[in-house]
């Protein structure tokens, strides 16, 4: 079963929920797909044993064969190629690696080469295996790296995925193919507003989901009314407690220091399993 943890609004507690749930279950694979700002390892303190660079394919233009005809630039929907009469300029950060320029070139002057965009990192804490991606600073495109993280999914294992913030391409790529998505929200107007957008995305993607309310007790009650009206189950409430916030700030998963929470996270996972029917 693959369960992703997403939120829309940042800082609602995705990583906290993903890590505490993973630790409470133990034998699990945790993937951190927030490749722009991966944080799960800061709570897990894993033994890291391997780093692997991740590349995307980009065009390489053979100047001797190139006629500067501009067909490649005309084809490229992302403006990653610009052809002048002297030279074809390539802007790697704009390239989506679609391979279209190769097809468009009448002289077969374009081949592909690898360009690094980030790295995969592998670690473990006991039976829990962690894989995360780290985007190189300055690289705009998270999606290819997220795909590389997801390729590490081990079949026949329960997988928890910590999703990136927001509701656009990185989140969509992360949540695609998940059996279930946990939406972590906080009972504030920002939390609710961004939750609503994320709900629309998940409905469009046909991924089943439920809500975890974090920092319960602050803000207002509207998130509960909304979930009730929309028939979205709330599987867990984590109250706002200074102790939880302080533990988080020190990089300590709170279920380790507050053992009653271990059972609650186990129950959360069983509830998800029941909803998925696995």
């Amino acid at each position: 079963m693959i369960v992703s943890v997403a939120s829309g609004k940042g800082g609602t507690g995705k990583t906290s929920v993903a890590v505490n749930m993973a630790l409470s279950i133990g034998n699990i694979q945790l993937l951190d797909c927030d490749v722009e700002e991966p944080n799960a390892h800061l709570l897990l303190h894993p033994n890291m044993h391997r780093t692997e660079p991740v590349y995307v394919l980009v065009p390489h233009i053979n100047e001797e064969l190139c006629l500067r005809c501009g067909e490649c630039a005309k084809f490229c929907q992302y403006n990653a190629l610009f052809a002048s009469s002297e030279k074809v300029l390539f802007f790697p950060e704009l390239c989506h690696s679609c391979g279209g320029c190769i097809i468009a070139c009448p002289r077969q002057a374009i081949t592909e080469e690898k360009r690094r965009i980030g790295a995969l990192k592998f670690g473990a804490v006991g039976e829990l295996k962690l894989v995360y991606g780290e985007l190189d600073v300055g690289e705009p495109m998270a999606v290819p790296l997220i795909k590389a993280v997801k390729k590490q999914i081990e079949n026949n294992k329960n997988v928890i995925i910590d999703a990136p913030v927001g509701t656009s391409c990185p989140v969509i790529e992360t949540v695609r193919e998940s059996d279930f998505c946990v939406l972590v929200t906080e009972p504030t107007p920002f939390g609710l507003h961004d939750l609503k957008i994320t709900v629309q995305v998940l409905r469009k993607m046909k991924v089943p989901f439920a809500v975890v309310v974090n920092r319960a007790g602050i803000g207002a009650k509207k998130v509960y009314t909304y979930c009730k009206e929309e028939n979205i189950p709330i599987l867990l409430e984590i109250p706002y407690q200074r102790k939880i916030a302080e533990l988080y700030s020190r990089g300590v998963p709170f279920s380790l220091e507050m053992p009653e929470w271990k059972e609650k996270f186990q129950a959360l996972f069983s509830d998800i399993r029941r909803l998925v029917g696995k």
Partner: protein
Amino acid sequence: MKQLTILSGKGGTGKTTIAAAFAVLARNAVLADCDVDAPDLHMLLHPEVIKTQEFKGSKIAVIDKTKCVNCDLCREKCRFDAITEAIEVDPVACEGCGVCAALCPEDAITLAERVSGYAYISKTKYGFMAHALLSPGEANSGKLVTLVRQNARVLSEKENSDLIVIDGPPGIGCPVIASVTGVDAGFVVTEPTMSGIHDLKRALQLLEHFNVTPLVCVNMYDINKDNTEKIVSFCRENNVEVVGKIPFSPKVTEAMVNGKTIVEYSPRGAVAKEIARVWEKMSSSISGK
């Protein structure tokens, strides 16, 4: 005209709270909400939309089933796995590259424009605002950010405003890069947590990469004073100015629930006072550049 982008790396550190407060304090600034996939600034500033623009960020492949002979070539060659086994386009996965259209032996595939969201020009009590909303499940947030910033520039020229305050998205990827390129300063809001510190460092590297002057503000600094001290000394060692330390206060959430900025809701509170002090310090440092 100067541009200031508020960013954070980590989400939920207080970017929008601070951006909204700056909007009130600045008087003549144009505001730009560049968190286009989860915009929140409008909930504090209540803009009245005066102009709506369609955003066409990319194209999408359209298959004419009457011409399709199910040869499967499009599905094989698509690098985004956007053609299903039934030879249909998955709109979420399609990046509109056009490879399938170019290869289709029956010319059954064309590229069509797709509306991926809307950009808005609005009026608020505190000045004009450019903002947007990406449609659920659409891509190209970076391009939409660029459109919002372009709208903000036009507004600031029209209104003779000397500052654009940009509320940036979290992360360090495409929409963040689009929000920080060419601005006069990047105001990084961080929190004294392990994640906050980790993400602050990456945000600062990003600003350095794009040659943008960094300013740092520690929000909720009293949640963990040891970590705040670590942030301050890290910044000192790296010659980055820490312009403020804002205390934690439940008033911030109360203000949000009431749809108000913290400087309106609790003007004499510790948070509003510190933000005002930061604003004074910063506006003089930006205009002095």
